């Protein structure tokens, strides 16, 4: 059951939300001293406070995900609005904690360092009900490999990171879809995704209006 409509440069595709399995994340007890020490130097899921909106996306013209060493092509994923500890978003020149959704380092579109609200692209359509959202070790995102990402996820779970609740996700889906029953939004290309994200920046991060404007300049 697929219908599509045009909206600006974006094509909205009706779909059906997958029924998310409620799989409680297994919290493995910390069993060794080293693991505890590692969790101290990394960020943690406690720094990710809430998920404000979630939008499943597809992209007509794939683009490279520069936030991993593989630079895999993005054909679909999630656009999320998150509220996190602002200090975690302050950008330094040396390595900063990497923001993960499940085992994916996500692209941060805006700064968010004042509001704590950051719009991100998850490069794959993963099951959010099984994907904790957390800050991992400090690194350059472009250097993070698949094995590192899996290790970070394991560590995060060991540290107690859990996915957001079904209720929180449902609210986020509802907000992301603006009340429509559109389940997946297909964008022509990366630029169209960013133009859509600009609307979220206006809404969630009004202190970054100038940046949002710049995303609409082309």
């Amino acid at each position, binding site marked *: 059951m697929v219908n599509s409509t045009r909206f600006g440069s974006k094509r909205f595709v009706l779909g059906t939300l997958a029924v998310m399995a409620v799989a409680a994340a297994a919290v493995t007890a910390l069993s060794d001293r080293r693991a505890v020490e590692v969790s101290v130097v990394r960020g943690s899921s406690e720094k990710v406070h809430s998920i404000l909106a979630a939008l499943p996306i597809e992209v007509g013209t794939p683009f490279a995900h*520069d936030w991993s060493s593989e630079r895999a092509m993005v054909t679909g994923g999630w656009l999320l609005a998150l509220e996190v500890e602002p200090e975690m978003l302050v950008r*330094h020149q040396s390595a900063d904690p990497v923001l993960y959704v499940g085992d994916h380092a996500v692209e941060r579109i805006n700064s968010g360092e004042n509001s704590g609200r950051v719009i991100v692209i998850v490069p794959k359509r993963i099951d959010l009900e099984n994907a904790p959202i957390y800050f991992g070790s400090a690194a350059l995102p472009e250097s993070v490999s698949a094995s590192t990402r899996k290790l970070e996820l394991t560590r995060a779970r060991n540290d107690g990171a859990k996915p957001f609740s079904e209720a929180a996700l449902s609210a986020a889906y509802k907000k992301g879809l603006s009340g429509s029953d559109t389940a997946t939004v297909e964008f022509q290309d*990366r630029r169209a995704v960013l133009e859509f994200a600009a609307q979220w920046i206006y809404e969630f991060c009004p202190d970054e209006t100038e940046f949002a404007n710049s995303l609409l300049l082309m």
Partner: protein
Amino acid sequence: MTTPRIAAAAFFCAIFGSLGSAQILSGTHLPEDTFRPTPYKGFHNLITTDIAGRPLPQFPGFSFVQSFYEGTDVNASVDLARLNHLTPGTYELFVVADQTATEWAPNEELIDVRGSSQTVSFTGATVASNAVTIDTGTLSADAGLRLAIGYDVVIDVDGDGRLTNGDVIDGYGAEPGFYVVRDPSSDGPLGTIETNVTVTGVKAGFEGENLFYPDNISSLGKLPLIVISHGNGHNFNWYDHLGHHFASWGFVVMSHRNDTVPGIQTASQTTLTHTDAFLGSLGTLDGGILDGHVDVSQIMWIGHSRGAEGIVRAYDKLFDGFYVPTNYDIDDIKGLSSIAPTIFLSKDDTNPHGVPFHLWTGASDNDVSGCASSSIVYTFLTHERALGDRYSTYLHGAGHGAFHNGGGSLVAAGPCQINRTETHRIMKTYLLPLAHTYFYGAPEVQELLWRQDEEFQPAVPIAGPCIVINKTYQRRTVARQAIDNFQFFRDIITSSHGGAVSFSIDSATEGVLDDPDTNFTFSAVEPMNGMTYSITGESWRGLTVDWSANDQNVEWEIRTGKRDISNWEYLTFRATQITRHPNTTAVLGDLTFEVELRDELGNKSSINIGAYGGGIEEPYQRTGCGTGTGWSNFFETIRIPVADFETDGAVIDLSRIEAVRFVFGPAFGSAVGRMGIDDLELTNG
């Protein structure tokens, strides 16, 4: 400024068509007053020598420098001991518009640019005693878009008001006798336009560019392009201070949105693609006003922080062929300037190779801090990797945020911090001459890149209780001869050119310039404490020494066959105090010592490095990074004109020098000290 020996050698080569350089250069050493370009244009007894300069408080007593800031005094002197064709007496001295050898005509009337000639008396036995002021800051430096005007100095020996045989001239050759230089931090002559545009062909979301260009660009020719790549968390609109400044001096500046958060690869890609997209869009950007007015063969990249590493990575990608531009190529990149660069990538990936490279480091930087705790913040490492001409500027009190004009925190730690206004003036003072060097060669501004600020200041000084500027200057594309760069013959008693090295000193260690632990805390067993010039896998080496008594020394033998140093312009090295060592903290101030040459007959001539002003600077008094006070070690360049060792008839045969000795102790400079030394060499240029 005349370089008589070189001029003489070049002349002989030209006349006789024989480059046999070793024979001619080493076998025909001529006192400079005997250079007679017979029968060139009818002159057969014209004496060329250095005349313009500045007085020094101690031997050699006078320094024949090349550049003077507009509005400051210009002095002159002659060393009668060397200029033995000039009889002590009173003469008319002319300051005239610069002409080259091909432009001067015999019997040409001397027209003094000051309005009239000056009667001077050269009767003293020392060059210091013959010093006279020949201008009190009235000479013009207004050269349009260039930074200096050249002048020649003539001693009209026969008093006929014309350049004739027997007269003495400074500036007869290709270069003038001296230059009067604009304060490079002053605005240029052109009005400027700033505008924001977007381009296609770059990563979506990063299309923004901030452009600066002269407001009369449509009437100008093709102008060099300067590209600015900002750092992480920074903004491409934060470099107005550089954009307007360069545009006012006839450059086009493009500062672009930079993709720094993922890392250095993405940042470098943005630099590469923005440069391409900009050059490919000239026909449409801002109504196409730039079309036909950007010189694609003249590009300089400036980067900040991650963007500073990004521009080096970008160059490396061009070098390795990982990025093939459409609208420019690697040869069009004339130089880089990295402001507080990170160093995430290895030397295989972040490497300036042979392109001219310049480094800014802020000693108060609280982000790319330079602490030994992480090699990511070792700013000096990129500089060490550079194989071409390389330069660095180290600012005490400058924070990471002081280099942009985006407001907010200076991201600084430590005492006596300098603000953005001060930092930006220093940046303009250095970057404009650097750009002229990259694009034009610009001999007129070379001294601005290496002379110590203690003695070389514009008419409105860059002065303040917290302003301390240190420079290194290593022209690696000019003729040079290493005495010891510590990279070869890796034992401490053999120099890199194979000569013996001997020590009479408290301690000396040759090794990799890498602090062995993660802090700057003093340790008696860490001779390389505070060094952040190398890391594991890279072996940039040097020497550290310390002294606490008189006449302690290090001596480098000059090997047979290399002992004629008379044709070299400068004896140069770089040195640094070693942070937090008791000998360093004992006396807070510049370190000085003597450099001594000894010839094969045992004659010696010595010059204290402090004679020229300044010395080896005290470490910035910042705490943290372990216990104690004093931030990382930083090299600065010392250049001593070889000819200065012969001043006032000093008995030394520069064609037979068997040893260079650094002599330490209270009778020779600082009573105690600990110092790092590297790149001891002879250079021309």
